[in-house]
């Protein structure tokens, strides 16, 4: 008999718990995050993929898998991909932080720097930077704060 009471209790408890978010109507939007954040996340991901492709290409070149001419041509293509994503990220972030768009040359410069820092991975001597606006820690070479979007 006892086990029935326990089961009924559990069912009631689960019922209340499941229905509670519906009864609390103030939490309407918290479960669905705004779209721009996801879009940004996706662009970040694509950018990382492009960087990874460049690094892999360089590594392949070092291993002698690819000829000099191919390397040059491919790297340029990959760079353009990365630039494309970076620009898009800037566009999105502009809405939030009003950061100034950079020229193509600057962006390529930026990419080279980021890639070389990624390449050295953990052995990198660069320290994490802190946002001047809100104090959130960001990895080195981050141009914008991941929390408030201010330029670092």
């Amino acid at each position: 008999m006892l086990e029935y009471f326990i089961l009924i209790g559990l069912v009631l408890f689960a019922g209340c718990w499941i229905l509670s978010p519906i009864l609390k109507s103030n939490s309407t939007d918290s479960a669905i995050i705004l779209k721009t954040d996801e879009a940004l996340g996706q662009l970040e991901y694509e950018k990382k993929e492009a960087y990874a492709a460049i690094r892999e290409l360089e590594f392949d070149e070092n291993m002698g898998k690819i000829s000099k001419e191919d390397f040059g041509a491919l790297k340029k293509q990959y760079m353009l991909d990365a630039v494309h994503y970076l620009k898009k990220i800037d566009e999105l972030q502009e809405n939030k932080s009003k950061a100034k768009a950079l020229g193509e040359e600057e962006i390529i410069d930026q990419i080279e720097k980021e890639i070389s820092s990624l390449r050295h991975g953990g052995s990198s001597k660069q320290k994490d930077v802190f946002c001047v606006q809100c104090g959130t820690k960001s990895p080195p070479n981050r141009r914008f704060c991941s929390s408030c979007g201010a330029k670092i």
Partner: protein
Amino acid sequence: MTEIGYYSVLTAFFLSGYSALIAFFGIRGRKGNLVASAENAAYAVFGFLTIASFVLIYALVTRDFQIEYVARYTSNGLPMTYTIAAFYAGQKGSLLLWGWLLSIFAAIVTFQNRKKNRELLPYVLTVLMTVTMFFTFLMVFVTNPFETFNYRPPDGQGLNPLLQNPGMLFHPPTLFIGYVGLTVPFGFAIAALITGRLDAVWIKTTRKWTIVAWFFLTAGNMLGMEWAYVELGWGGYWAWDPVENASFMPWIIATAYLHSVMIQEKRGMLKVWNIVLIIFSFLMTLFGTFITRSGLIASVHSFGESSLGWIFLIFLIASLLISLTLLIRRLPQLKSKNQLDSFLSKESSFLYNNLLLVGIAFTVLWGTLFPIISEAIRGVKITVGPPFFNAVITPIGLGLLFLMGICPLIAWRRSSVSNFLKKFFIPSTAAVAGAFVLFIVGIRLFYTLISYALCIFVLITLFFEFFYGTRTRHSVFKEGYHKALWNLVVRNKRRYGGYVVHFGVVLVFISLSANTFNLEKQITLKKGELFSFKEYKIRYDSLVNYPTAIKHVVAATLSIFNNEHKVAVLVPEKTLFKSQEQPTTEVAIHTTLKEDLYVILAGYGEDWITLKVLINPLVVWLWIGGVVMGLGTLIVMLPDRRGQSESKRKSVVRF
């Protein structure tokens, strides 16, 4: 107690239905509180199915024979480990395990995505909960695992002796986890199709879940082969039985996906293809259940025929139609971002690899279904057995092996022909030389020769990949060789973990190709008599005959000599379980790296025994290869060490 189990499943059935519906309408109407409620319901489903599972385990452990399931699969003398394993010894328990695992995975997915993928998650939840509802539906309305007798039998029928092997403890649950794991990628694929968010996010999540499922499928299949080898006593481990095919097809399709997903990640191509692979790898798990339960196909493992198979078929067709409709609706959005740049590129080799893998899957499907097709079209039942599968799949498999060696030699997008030939020269020369040596030594079988030549080819390219990589790190970063090798693997987990998996596959190929050299003899021996078989001598020492609590054992003691040195004592047995009518043969195996000596006690009399003896070369490398594949997969799955610095760095191939 048993009612608790039943009502828990019933509650889970309603809650999963609720969760599926309300998650769907919650996200449609953009009502966050409904989605939150659906998530809580998913956790609750997990809770109730956990209760149900523990009730069944409790009933098994306490041997409550009033429950039909317990009485059918356990008995008083059954050891505790197998009593617990009886949880999934029958159809009903398997369904419960499937549903329970699914609810666990649903809870994990919900928890993992509580702060991300918020647009996708409700749909994923809808899919996972619908499938859970399907399984709980079966348990509530079709075959209730908690069905009871109105009396209490004094003892149960016991577990089939074939199942009383350590394999039983690991093989079925591992395979189930693999099957269930493929439902999660399917959920994400459907969610991506519904929302139209068809880019990187879903593919990243799906890939991770697929690799986990793939790990378990690989392990499950390997364990199953090992089990068949030591327990079934016919000297082999794979017979292309429909049941085996059913677990092989999802695996091969998942393998294809794990390769083609890289093209999508790197080049934004093959988007439709990837979705199709994900959908089919999930459908194949249902299909396997359908063919084994419907009695449609004559299998050696004839399962209890029931209407269950047909219910699975209906569910399968419904899933197929829904997924394809969604896919067709999204086709315009699934255009490739890029074109194939060159034929001598990683992309094209991956494409070809996919073509071959899917070709294998199709062959297996066709061979499995052929009896039905031929009966429908020509009115005669024609079966195709292992010879068919071997004849078709061997050349395709060798093609795959070749690609495995070629692929590391070429770069993404394009490689120049001259550069490729330069790289190609050493491995291919070595392969040809190796084949020549093997030919001289006396291996004249065409496929075997080709296979070993390709194995050499792949091994050398893999070695160069590690060697040059380490050397490059050494010269560029001034790291010591050990550290360079370590960093090479750890910083490029996917790439080098993948190579480790390939290394395991080569070992598997080496072992499989040696099958052509299997030897087999039958011999009747008198006590003390010697029998020579290749370099082995087998001496029959004694026969013992003794009863234990649950079985009666007849065991022959044999001394094994290898070139006059005694290397082992083997004891093949025949046992008769008291609760079963049929005898069980326990084979004895003497394993070395070179070959297995596999002895079956076929018959015995007063002073003689009849043995069947097999020499199976290189079998142990199959298991080693399986372990290496598992290790490689673990490297790929390894979480990032510096995850704290930035979670987004995950999945980036690191230099």
